[in-house]
C-alpha cells in the first residue's frame, strides 16, 4: 500500500472539500470550492484539482449532503461518520465533536477507540449554522470573512433572543435603531450560535470543533471556551475534517479488502 493514494470528497451544502492522503494517512493535497447548484460538477472539479496537484487517486469515498451525486459514484458514508473518523484522527481519545456546517450542526460522541457512540443533528431550521452567520453579515453589510474579527473586538455582546434567522434579523434592526455597535451585535449573534449548540447537547468531556464555519469564524471557539470553562480542541484544517474522515475510510476499506 506504500504508494497508494486515498481521497475523501465532502460535498457540502455550501462548499465541496477534497483531501488526498497516503497509506500512512499523511495529507498530500486539499482543495475547497463553492458547491453551487451542481453537486456532480463540484465533486468532479474538486477531484480534478487535487489530481492536478500531483496526487491522483483511484480510491475515493464521498460524503456530505451531495454524496450520492458524486460523478464517479464512489462508495459513500454520511458526514456524521466521517466527521467522527476525521476528528478522532486529530484527537485520538474520547471526545465530543461539534461540527458547524453551512446548513447543519452535528454533535458526535466518539469513544477511546474512535468508535462513534451517538450523534445529534439540528432540526430542519438552519438557525445557528453557517447560513445564519452569512445572513447576519449580509444584513449588516459586512463581508462574512470579516465578522469574526469584528466580534472579537466587541466590548459587550448584545443579547440576541430569537431562535430563528429571520426573527434575528428583525431583532438586529431594533438593536441598530437603539445604537448598538455592529461589533456587539455580531458578538451576540455568535453567542446565539453557541447557545444553539449547547441546547443540542451538554457537551460533557473533551470537545473538538470542526467544520467550515469554525475555520472562518474562530471567535466561536473563544465563546464556547467561556461557556464551558475549558478550551475546546480546534481541529487543524477544520473545514477538511469530514473529507479527511472519508479519505481515512477509503484507506481502511482498501486495507480490509486487501487483507
Amino acid at each position: 500500500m506504500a504508494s497508494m493514494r486515498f481521497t475523501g470528497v465532502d460535498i457540502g451544502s455550501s462548499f465541496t472539500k477534497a483531501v488526498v492522503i497516503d497509506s500512512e494517512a499523511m495529507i498530500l493535497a486539499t482543495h475547497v470550492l463553492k458547491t453551487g447548484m451542481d453537486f456532480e460538477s463540484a465533486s468532479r472539479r474538486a477531484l480534478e484539482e487535487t489530481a492536478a496537484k500531483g496526487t491522483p487517486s483511484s480510491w475515493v469515498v464521498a460524503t456530505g449532503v451531495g454524496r450520492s451525486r458524486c460523478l464517479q459514484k464512489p462508495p459513500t458514508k454520511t458526514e456524521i461518520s466521517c466527521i467522527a473518523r476525521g476528528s478522532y484522527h486529530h484527537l485520538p481519545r474520547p471526545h465530543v465533536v461539534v461540527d458547524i456546517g453551512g446548513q447543519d450542526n452535528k454533535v458526535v460522541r466518539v469513544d477511546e477507540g474512535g468508535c462513534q457512540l451517538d450523534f445529534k443533528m439540528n432540526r430542519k431550521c438552519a438557525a445557528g449554522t453557517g447560513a445564519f452567520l452569512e445572513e447576519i453579515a449580509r444584513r449588516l453589510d459586512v463581508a462574512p470573512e470579516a465578522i469574526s474579527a469584528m466580534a472579537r473586538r466587541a466590548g459587550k455582546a448584545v443579547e440576541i433572543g430569537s431562535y430563528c434567522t429571520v426573527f434575528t434579523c428583525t431583532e438586529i434592526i431594533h438593536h441598530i435603531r437603539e445604537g448598538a455597535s455592529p461589533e456587539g451585535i455580531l458578538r451576540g449573534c455568535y453567542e446565539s450560535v453557541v447557545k444553539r449548540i449547547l441546547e443540542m447537547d451538554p457537551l460533557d468531556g473533551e470537545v473538538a470543533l470542526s467544520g467550515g464555519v469554525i475555520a472562518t469564524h474562530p471567535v466561536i471557539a473563544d465563546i464556547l471556551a467561556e461557556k464551558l470553562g475549558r478550551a475546546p480542541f480546534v481541529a487543524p484544517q477544520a473545514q477538511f475534517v469530514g473529507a479527511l474522515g472519508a479519505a481515512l475510510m477509503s484507506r481502511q476499506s482498501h486495507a480490509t479488502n486487501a487483507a
Partner: protein
Amino acid sequence: MASEKSSRLRASRQKLDVLLKDYYAGLDAAGKDPARKVAWCTSAGPVELLEAMGFHLYFPENHGALLGARRLATGFIGQANAKGYSPDICSYLTADIGAHLRGESPLKDAYGIDAPPKPDVLVYNTSQCREVQDWFSFYGREFGVPVLGIHSPWKAGTVGPESIADVAQQLERMAVTLAPIAGAPLNRARLAEVVKLSSQASAHWKRFLETGRARPSPITFFDATIHMAPIVVMRGKEATRDYYRGLVEEAEALVRDGIAAVEGERLRFYWDGMPNWGKLRFFSDLFTRLKICAVASTYCLSWVFDELDCRRPFESMAEANLKVFINRSEDYKESYLVDAVKAYSIDAILFHEAKTCPYNTNSRFGLPQRLLEGHGVASTTLYGDLCDLRCFSEDQTETTVEALAEQLAARAPRG
C-alpha cells in the same frame, strides 16, 4: 390507512380494498338516509358503544391520515390557519378542517364517495389527546349537532380502579344521552357481542404484528399502516374479525417460509410516534436500500386492546382506552419500549418528533437518553410531522437514518 402497495400479503390486501370500499359505501348511504344515524368518533373510541347502538361510524382522524398519505394535507392547513386554527396544533385537525372549508376530500378518489357523511352526533375520547375536543367542537358548531366526550384521566403509570370506574360511568351516562339520537336505548347483550368481536379482532391484529418478531421479519411497519384501517374504523364487526384472521394466516405462512419483508434484513428498527403519512414511501425506500426493517411500532401496537372483555363491557372499554400507550406515564413508556426492544430484537428506535403532535411524540422528556443510559438502547430522533410536510427535510432525515445504520454496523461483531 396508507396508500403504498405491498407485494406480500396480497390476498389480504385485495380483501382490504373490498372491505374499505364497502365500509365507505355504507357510510355514504347512511349519511343520505335520515333513518340511519351517523356518529363521528375518535380512534380511541368509544367505538364499541356507538357500534352497539347502531350508529354508522366515521373517523375524522382517518380522513386526516388519508389527506396526509395523499400529500394533500399541507395544501389545506392554511385554510384552517386563516380561520384561527394555529399551524402549531394537530395537523390532522387543521388539514381536515381546511379540506372541509374548501369542500374537498380524497374520499371520492379513494373510495368513490363525494364527501364525509353528515354527522348526527360527534363523540370523542381525550385518552389519546386533548385537541380532539376542539376539533369535534368545530364540527359541532358547523353542523349544529351534539358533541359528547369521555374525559379520561391523563398520563397514568398504573391505571387504577378509580380511573376505570370514572370512565366506565362516563360511558354509561353517554349511552343514556345517545339513546334519543340513536332512536333506541342500548341493548346490553348487543354491546357484549360487539365487545367480543372487537376483542377477537384485536387478538388477531396483535398476532399479526407479532409476526414481526421473526428473523427475518415478514412484515414492516409500512405493511401494518396499510392493514390497520379496519382495526381503527371497523371494530365490533364480524367482517373485521374475519379479515384479521386471514391476515394472520397469511403472515404466519410467510414466517414458516422464511420470507423477508426486506431482502437481506441487516438491521431491525422500531418506529415510535406518529407515521409521517406523506413520506411513507420515502422511508420504505430508504430502509430497503439500507436493509433496515422497521419491524414494529408503538403506533400500530396501540390498537391492541387486550383488556376488552365481553363479560364486563363498560369496565373493559374504559380500561382499554385508559391503558393506551399515548395516555401513559414516562416510566411506563420507558418500560414498554424496553420490553418491545427485547421482544422484537430491535437494534435501534426511531423517535418521530411530530411538530404538531406533542401528545404522540415521546422524545421530548428525555426518554431516548434514559433508554440509552439505563438500558443501552440506541435511538435517534427524526424531525417531521404526521401531515405537514413543511416540517420535514428528506436530506437531513436520510443522513440521520444512514448515520445511525453506519454507527450500528461499525459496532456489530464481525464474523
